[in-house]
């Protein structure tokens, strides 16, 4: 592969709890859309929870991350703590004023609210990265 395939700054790792409530699924939907929009890349929280070394080491070494929990139970945070992954950007959706329930008809306004908060949590450097600077080809090297 050539040098031009490389991403200059790397991607923001996005970890969502993806739990069994509206806020869990809002976290997941926001992570999916932020990935599609080129802000960062959704990553597998289950792999970290399973203590698979590639996933755990990736989370430890990534420069920029946002971890999204739906509610104060904090499963994402707990998984990262168990795997000894430093918590970088962190967000709890109920703290944004979104009520936890079992209505899975996710609203556009709430999704956008979560995406904006996730960008803010990930930090200004990540938020200002242009999608065009991200890798279009799926290449993941960090040159």
């Amino acid at each position, binding site marked *: *592969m*050539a*040098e031009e*395939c*490389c991403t200059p700054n*790397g*991607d923001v*790792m996005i970890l969502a709890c993806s739990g069994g409530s509206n806020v869990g699924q809002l976290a997941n939907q926001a992570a999916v859309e932020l990935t599609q929009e080129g802000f960062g*890349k959704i*990553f*597998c929280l289950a*792999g970290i929870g399973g203590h*698979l*070394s*590639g*996933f*755990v*080491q*990736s*989370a*430890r*070494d*990534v*420069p920029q991350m946002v971890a999204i929990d739906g509610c104060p139970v904090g499963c994402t945070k707990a998984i990262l703590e168990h795997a000894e992954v430093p918590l970088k950007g962190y967000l709890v959706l109920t703290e944004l004023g979104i009520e936890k329930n079992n209505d899975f008809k996710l609203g556009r306004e709430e999704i956008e609210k979560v995406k904006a908060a996730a960008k803010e949590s990930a930090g200004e450097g990540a938020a200002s990265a242009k999608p065009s600077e991200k890798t279009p080809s*799926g*290449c*993941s*090297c*960090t*040159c």
Partner: protein
Amino acid sequence: MEIKVLGPGCPKCQQTEKNVKEAISESGVAANVEKVTDTMEIAKYGVFMTPSVVIDGEVKCVGKVPKKDEIKAWISD
């Protein structure tokens, strides 16, 4: 000892492979080094970025070029 360097072949990946080979040589440890460039094969390790170094199946670093001293510590464990 089986060591795999994961990466498509960019300068950072090449430097990582060089550092690994030099660390092995300087340590006198018996090890096989394999460069993995196939993206599907790399994906099996679940790494978010490359380069990455895998020693006997365990991923040791992701998205950075490890220093020789770091590698020597890993292979002496």
